[in-house]
């Protein structure tokens, strides 16, 4: 069995250090397994978030050698390093150890009105063809792990930028054939801290553990937002 040193940023913003922990690793051992190993066997004061351990709850994203990853679905052997540094997600207020404050992340998500908006009160099924579903489906897979924001050069330096997760959520509903609230969302995302802040560096799509392409969603959102802005400028009535 191989051994790997985990160098973990441990402490609170007032007082912290990097601490080394040696963990036995075999094929299949994940970063999250290593964190539990450390907490159960070496240091019971190590604090991290985790729940489902199957890459669906979004709790456990951390910086692994300076790149954001969900701990539960990252195989240690695939990293191929003898020393692995773990730090809290970049770009978020730090609480302690590997735990960051997610309140801002969820507020940004909420601000884009990420829910289906209907003007009517539908009764039966809202029919949607498999093709219509396919138009937005990948963007429903977001587990809100926050990795994209930690990878985004804009979001890390500008705390007000809505960021890839929230913008992709806006696009997800705008692209849903059942939705009738597109302009309400465009009013939010075409703001100065919205989709125009994106430089299309695509780091977010690279970091996404679910293989979603938020960068692509943001570009499509820019097209929608441009149309919206133009209509607004021409007073063509975009109230909704």
């Amino acid at each position, binding site marked *: 069995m191989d051994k790997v040193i985990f160098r973990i940023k441990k402490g609170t913003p007032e007082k912290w250090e990097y601490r080394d922990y040696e963990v036995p690793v075999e094929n299949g051992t994940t970063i999250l397994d290593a964190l539990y190993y450390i907490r159960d066997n070496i240091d019971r004061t190590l604090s991290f978030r985790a729940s*489902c351990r199957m890459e669906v709850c979004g*709790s456990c994203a951390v910086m692994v050698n300076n790149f954001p990853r969900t701990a539960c*679905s990252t195989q240690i052997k695939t990293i191929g390093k003898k020393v692995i540094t773990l730090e809290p997600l970049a770009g978020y207020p730090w609480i*302690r150890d590997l*735990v960051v404050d997610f309140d801002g992340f969820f507020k940004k998500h909420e601000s884009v009105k990420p829910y289906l908006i209907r003007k009517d009160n539908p009764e039966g099924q*809202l029919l949607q063809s498999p093709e219509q*579903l396919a138009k937005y489906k990948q963007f429903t897979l977001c587990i809100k792990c926050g990795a994209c924001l930690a990878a985004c050069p804009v979001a890390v330096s500008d705390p007000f930028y809505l960021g890839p997760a929230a913008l992709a959520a806006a696009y997800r*509903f705008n692209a849903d054939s059942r939705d009738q609230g597109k302009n309400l969302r465009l009013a939010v995302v075409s703001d100065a801290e919205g989709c125009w802040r994106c430089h299309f560096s695509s780091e977010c799509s690279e970091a996404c553990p679910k293989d979603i392409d938020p960068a692509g969603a943001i570009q499509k959102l820019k097209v929608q937002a441009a149309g919206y802005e133009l209509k607004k400028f021409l007073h063509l009535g975009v109230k909704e």
Partner: protein
Amino acid sequence: MEKIEADLLILGAGLAGLRAAISAAETDKNIKIAVISKLFFLRSHSVAAEGGTAAVLYEGDSYDLHAYDTIKGSDYLADQDAVEIFVRTMPKEILDLDHWGCPWSRLPDGRIAQRPFGGHSFPRATYAADRTGFHALHTLYERMLFYENIERYQEYFVTSFIINKEGFSGLTAINMKNGEFVLFRGKALIIATGGLGRLYSFTTYSHTVTGDGAAMALKAGMQLKDMEFIQFHPTGIVPSGILITEGARGEGGYLLNNKNERFMQKYAPQKMELAPRDVVSRSMMWEIQEGRGFTGPWGPYLLLDLRHLGDAKIRERLPAIRDIAIKFNGIDPKDEPLPVRPAAHYTMGGIHADNDTSTPVKGIFTAGEASCISIHGANRLGSNSTAECLVFGDISGRNAALYVKNARMNDIDMEKVKAEENRIYVEAFKKRGDETVPLLRRELNNTMQEKVGIFRNEKDLLDALKIVKSLQERFRNVYVEDRVMEYNTNLFTYLELDNLLEVAEVVILGAIARKESRGAHYRTDYPKRDDVNWMKHTIAQKVNGEIQLSYIPVRVTKWKPEERKY
């Protein structure tokens, strides 16, 4: 100490809790609703539900058929009037989710798609690929953002229920971010805290499912029902235990032994791999016991073969399963079968409640897996749990909202609050001995897994009881070593272990007393169902520090008990 007040407190933010919040907000715009969870709401274990949500939607299916399947699946321990409410309410819940944006999988004509599931005689598992719970939870969360009278308290760890003579009065909690003590006051409470699967070592459950609601209810003198019935899902992937949905068999997957036989032929010739979970899990264990399993470094296993479905169907219908197999096991299911073994998956029992979700304590309601209404009886059918969360979440939210309209805020017994504050902030941190949380938890998990699992007998159960009692004693020598109050996981795991030890005893006592085999409770020393003596619900309650068992009858409407063959 921070004090927070709302008319209605909802504890737990999985499918049941969020559905309850929406329902309460729609029932009354003028009440203040507080949803409280130790997790960010989207981290709730409901996200792990995969295969589908049962509902009667189309021609050829009927309420009676869904009810009959459910009752037969329950091994005739379900309350039949509750099941009837359940099946009749369910279709509306599917439509609500549709109207709120759930990305249901679709038929070519645009209608919502359904698939076959274990124990159901019609393909009524309504699905969103194989991430149904995930999508349903996200849809409810998104919809919840719509309502201005729902306040969100995420990462608040609730530690006790405060009840006085008039009924519910409040909750004590820890604000996990800063470690501060919080008192929640409310006129009513809905408990929607989920199950207790982390009692076991091989389990599909999230790390955070630790029986908190049931344990706090028990400590507060409330009644738990049918706690001995723990469901083992046939296909937890080895070694992690991650769930491989029954939908994989619903789409046509085979279970194979080491002779390459579809062994379910022997045990359930008609339903084969789609027999109910208790039947399939037992069959798998018999195969393993009789030497027809595979052996590996992580214990015995059997195979789930999806190769014949082909890559395209696997990618379309079972993308999450494919992803899990590749990411966690390095296996592409189109090329290789998956190693599986039954894993602890669901808690049929829970907090005793009536069909309207009210409990015997005035002002306390309960819904979802934390509750026991009971629609699942001794064995739950797949795709009935997410459904239950929706139906009874909805009912609990509405009834609790109506209740608080005419209720008053009860006085808080500050003595109890002080005692709880002392337990957490003084007692838990007092250095005592060498026992630690992980050590005791591991012993508890192994005991439950080995002695209170799929096959049970009196000797093992009595052993388990002795061990759990001694672990409860040893727990007094555990203390919280971490002195930093921000996000102190050492403290939270300490409190969770306390909860697990509390409920473990109830599970074991119920299992010792029930001298028959019914649904998921299989006694090798009493292998037959005994309707004369045991067609009744177990009620457990703590009286003067001791757990006492009593029994109440099952409500039968029109389905008489019959032999369960599949």
